[in-house]
């Protein structure tokens, strides 16, 4: 069943702050095999003008995707999560995420489309720091594949 278009533009309350830790960034950088010292060595990060180690560009997805759970699990929206695949992912950065950040995410349903029985949902996650300054916007396209007939 097609999702209700009236949900387009709906925003969900900001998440509780996620505190970005140096060791979490290190763990993520190691998991993607990236030995760039800007992720692990505060001196190397400062040499590039960052106040502390920064996170790899896609690190923030773990935070925004968790926040998008509010949308995905909204019983009023009624998305069948067992059929959902990740279609596209986009990030637009004002600055890199860095250790010490306390980040909140505000999720908004940017668009809902129905194509060949598939529901296609764009969820925008606006990430702000403790001072209320914008850090990054993540847009996640989720595709709920059409239910099989029969």
């Amino acid at each position: 069943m097609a999702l209700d278009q009236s949900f387009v533009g709906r925003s969900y309350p900001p998440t509780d702050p996620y505190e970005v830790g140096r060791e979490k960034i290190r763990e993520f950088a190691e998991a993607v095999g990236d030995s760039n010292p800007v992720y692990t060595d505060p001196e190397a990060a400062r040499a590039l003008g960052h106040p502390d180690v920064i996170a790899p560009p896609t690190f923030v997805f773990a935070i925004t995707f968790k926040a998008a759970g509010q949308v995905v699990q909204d019983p009023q929206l009624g998305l069948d999560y067992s059929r959902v695949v990740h279609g596209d992912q986009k990030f637009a950065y004002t600055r890199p995420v860095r250790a010490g950040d306390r980040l909140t995410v505000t999720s908004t349903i940017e668009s809902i489309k129905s194509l060949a029985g598939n529901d296609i949902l764009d969820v925008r996650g606006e990430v702000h720091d403790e001072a209320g300054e914008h850090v990054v916007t993540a847009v996640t396209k989720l595709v709920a594949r059409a239910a099989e007939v029969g």
Partner: protein
Amino acid sequence: MAAKISYADVEVGTELPAQTFSVTRATLVQYAGASGDFNPIHWNEKFAVEVGLPDVIAHGMFTMAEAIRVVTDWAGDPGAVVEYGVRFTKPVVVPNDDKGATVEVSGKVAAKLDDNTVRVDLTATSAGQKVLGMSRAVVRLA
């Protein structure tokens, strides 16, 4: 932000050094832990096959994280990336052996934009198939 590549030295068509990344089951388990994405299609073959996949597949976000390294290693400062987007077109299938899969990533400057930024178009393939589409990054150069 301190990219080591100068905007003036880059032209449309400039190629970035290509890289090859290896992905084994162990890589996926480690990425699951670090990212918090424990979807069993990324570590449980039986489950993956049950939902119609050929085998365990890599996290799309893992592939996305690898592909941008062609840009961040080139630019020098990952903080110079101002936009990054991909479409997940085909899964990276990861067999249960010590070799796993490989992902080959290349990148090319597609446009010079305002404010010392350039758009880099990335190509990522595994087993001869494109695994990312519309894979583009905008990066601010020195």
